[in-house]
C-alpha cells in the first residue's frame, strides 16, 4: 500500500515545552503515523533541540491536513531537492554513482513531486522517463545508452515496511528462523492466506497470485501429490522451477520413478537412472510439455496440473542440466527477465526446497510481498529472512511434509 509522507523539522525548546509531544500526538490523533528520524536534544537549557519527523498518512489529503495542523506548532517541511539524474554512457552500463535499489518501496523526487518507483526489486538501477515524470527499476543489463538514471541519494527516499494489518504468522515472525518452532500454527496461517488469495484470484483482484518456486526435492521427498493437488485446486498460480523438478515429476508419470527410485517402492529400479533422461528425450520429441500433456502422453503430476490449470511456469536452466526439457530458458539473463515479468500480481511466495530458485526469487520480490521459505537446510530460510522483511517466514522442514500438511489443512485427503 502506498503511503504518502513528508519530512518535517521541529526545532527550539520542543522537549520541556511538550511541543514535540503535542505534534506527535496531533499526527496520531488525526490518523497519521510518524517516524522520529533524528532527535538532537540540547545539552544545556539554553541549547535548542531538533527533531526530524517523517509524517505518513494513507492519502495525500490526510497528509496535507496533518501538515496544516502541525505547521502552526513549528513543524516545517524539510527543504527537499529533486533526485539527480545522469545519462547512461553505453548500453548495459549505468552512469557512475547510480542509485542501487533495495527491495523496499522507493520514491524519487521529480519536478518537486514524489513519484513512486515502479517494479521494486533489490539491486537494480532507477530509470526516469525522458519527460521526467515516471520512474521504474531497471536491471543493469537492460540499460540503453542515453537512458536517464537516478544517481546519488538526494531526492530518493525508501519507505520502511509497515507492520501488516493481518494478525497472522506473517505479522509477528519478524524474520525469525528456527528449526525448533512448532510448524502447525505457521502452516495453518499460510493455509488461511491461500484461501483468501484464491478467492481474490477468482474475483480477479490484483495481487492475489501465489508463486511457488520449488526444487526437485519436492518430488524426491514425496511432495508431488500434495503440490499437484494445490495446483489442481487453484492455490498456485505461478511456478518457478528448473529442469529437474519438471523432469522428475514427469518421470514419475512415465516410469513410476523419480531419479530412478521407485516412487512407491522407494528403491532403485534396474536402469532407473536412465528414466529421467528418457523422460526428457520423450518430451523433446513431442516438442513441449504442454503438447505432451494435451496429447495425453503425460497424464498426472505437477506439470500436467499446471498445464491444465493454466499456471504460468518459468523454468530456468542451470549448467548441470540434462537435456534440457523444451521450455527451459538456458540464458540466465533471459530467465531472470522472464521471472521478473511474472512477479507483478503475486501476493504470496512459497519458496520450497531449492536454494537456487529460492534465492533468485527472493531477490526479485519486493519486501511488501510475504514469503515463506521452506528448506531442510536452515541456511536457506536464514539467508532469505535476513532480507529484513516483516513478512518473511522461514521453516526448517522437509518439503514433502510441508506441502502435505498444507494441502491437508486446505482439505486434501492425502
Amino acid at each position, binding site marked *: 500500500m502506498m503511503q504518502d509522507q513528508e519530512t518535517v523539522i521541529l526545532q*527550539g*525548546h520542543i522537549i*520541556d515545552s*511538550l511541543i514535540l509531544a503535542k505534534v506527535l500526538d496531533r499526527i496520531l490523533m488525526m490518523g497519521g503515523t510518524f517516524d522520529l528520524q533524528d532527535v538532537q536534544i540540547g545539552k544545556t537549557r*539554553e541549547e535548542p533541540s531538533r527533531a526530524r519527523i517523517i509524517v505518513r498518512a494513507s492519502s495525500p489529503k490526510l497528509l496535507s491536513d496533518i501538515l496544516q495542523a502541525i505547521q*502552526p506548532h*513549528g513543524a*516545517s517541511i524539510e527543504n527537499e531537492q529533486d533526485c539527480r539524474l545522469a545519462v547512461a554512457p553505453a548500453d548495459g552500463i549505468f552512469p557512475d554513482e547510480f542509485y542501487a535499489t533495495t527491495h523496499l518501496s522507493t520514491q524519487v523526487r521529480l519536478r518537486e513531486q514524489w513519484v513512486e518507483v515502479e517494479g521494486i526489486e533489490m539491486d537494480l538501477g532507477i530509470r526516469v522517463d525522458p519527460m521526467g515524470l515516471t520512474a521504474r527499476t531497471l536491471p543493469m543489463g537492460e540499460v540503453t545508452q542515453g537512458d536517464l538514471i537516478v544517481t546519488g541519494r538526494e531526492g530518493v527516499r525508501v519507505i520502511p515496511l509497515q507492520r501488516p494489518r493481518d494478525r497472522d504468522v506473517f505479522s509477528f515472525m519478524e524474520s525469525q528462523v528456527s528449526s525448533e518452532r512448532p510448524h502447525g500454527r505457521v502452516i495453518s496461517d499460510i493455509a488461511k492466506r491461500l484461501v483468501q488469495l484464491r478467492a481474490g484470484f477468482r474475483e480477479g483482484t490484483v495481487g492475489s497470485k501465489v508463486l511457488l518456486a520449488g526444487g526437485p526435492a519436492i518430488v524426491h521427498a514425496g511432495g508431488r501429490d500434495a503440490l499437484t493437488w494445490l495446483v489442481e485446486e487453484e492455490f498456485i498460480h505461478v511456478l518457478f522451477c528448473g529442469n529437474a523438478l519438471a523432469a522428475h515429476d514427469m518421470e514419475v508419470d512415465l516410469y513410476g520413478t523419480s531419479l530412478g527410485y521407485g516412487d512407491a517402492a522407494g528403491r532403485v529400479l534396474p536402469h532407473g537412472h536412465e528414466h529421467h533422461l528418457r523422460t526428457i528425450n520423450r518430451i523433446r520429441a513431442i516438442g513441449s510439455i504442454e503438447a505432451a500433456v494435451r496429447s495425453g502422453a503425460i497424464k498426472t503430476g505437477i506439470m500436467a496440473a499446471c498445464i491444465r490449470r493454466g499456471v504460468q511456469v518459468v523454468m530456468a536452466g542451470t549448467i548441470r542440466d540434462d537435456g534440457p526439457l523444451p521450455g527451459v530458458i538456458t540464458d540466465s539473463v533471459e530467465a531472470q527477465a522472464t521471472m521478473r515479468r511474472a512477479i507483478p500480481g503475486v501476493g504470496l511466495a512459497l519458496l520450497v526446497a531449492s536454494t537456487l530458485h529460492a534465492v533468485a526469487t527472493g531477490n526479485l520480490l519486493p519486501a511488501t510481498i510475504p514469503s515463506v521459505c521452506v528448506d531442510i537446510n536452515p541456511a536457506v530460510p536464514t539467508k532469505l529472512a535476513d532480507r529484513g522483511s516483516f513478512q518473511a517466514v522461514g521453516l526448517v522442514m522437509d518439503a514433502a511434509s510441508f506441502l502435505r500438511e498444507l494441502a491437508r489443512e486446505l482439505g486434501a485427503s492425502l
Partner: protein
Amino acid sequence: MSRLLVCPPDYFGIEYEINPWMRRSNVVNSDEAVRQWHHLMQVLEQDVGAVLERMKPVPGLPDLVFTANAGIVVGRQAVPSRFRYPERRREEVYFEEWFRSQGYDVVKLDPGCFFEGAGDLLGFSDTWFGGYRQRSDIRVFPTLSDWFHREIIPLELVDNRFYHLDTCFCPLSGGELLYFPPAFDHYGQVALAERIASSRRLAVPEAEALRFACNAICVGKHVVLPAGCPDTESQLTSHGYLPHPVPLDEFMKSGGSAKCLTLALD
C-alpha cells in the same frame, strides 16, 4: 530602578476590530481614557518608582499606546515587532525609530515571521516563555533563543480572548507566576507545572482573568493591575506583594490593560 516605555493616548480609539474585545460600536470615552492613563502613570512613577520614557503619539495609530507590542529590549539590543495584522503593522516604523533614536542596537527578524514583542515574550531571569498561535509565530522563538542565549518555552494560546501571552500570564519578581490556566492547553499547563512549583503558581479566577488581572506590571514587590480583581489582589498580598489597582476600563474596550500600556526597557 525600572524604566518603562509608554505612549500617551492622544489618538487612542477603536478604529478597527482585530481581537474579540474590540467593537467599533463600543466608543472610547477619550477624556476618561486620558484620565485613566495619567492615573496609571502617576502610580507607576510615584508609588512604584518607575522611570517613564514617553514616545510621541502618532495620529491614525490608535494602538501605539500599547507599547508592550513595540518589540523586546534585552540590554542594549532591541527587536522590533512584526505585527500579524496590517492595521498595526504601520506602528512598526515608529517603534523602530524610537529604539534607534535612543541608541539601541536594532536587530530585525525575517519578514513574514510574526512577533508581537513583550506581548508574547515574558519570563524569569533564566527561562522565557513565548505565546504563539494567536499573534506571534512559534518559529521566532528558536531565533530569539539563539540571539539572547535564553531558553524559550513556547506556550500555545488556545483562547482567542487571551490573544497575547501578557493577557493571561504574568511572571512576578519573586519567581511566582500569576496566570489563567485555561488560556493554555494541557501541554502548556504541564510544561508550566514542570517549571514552576504549584505553591508559586497563582491562578486567577475566570471573572478576573476577563478583567485582565494578569495584564499586570510587576516592579519589585509592587504589582500594578486593573481595578476590580479582589481575589488576585489578595493572592498577591498573601505572597508579599503590594497590589496597586488602577481603573483602566477604557483600554479594556480595545483588549488591553496595565501591562499592555508599558514596555520594560531594563
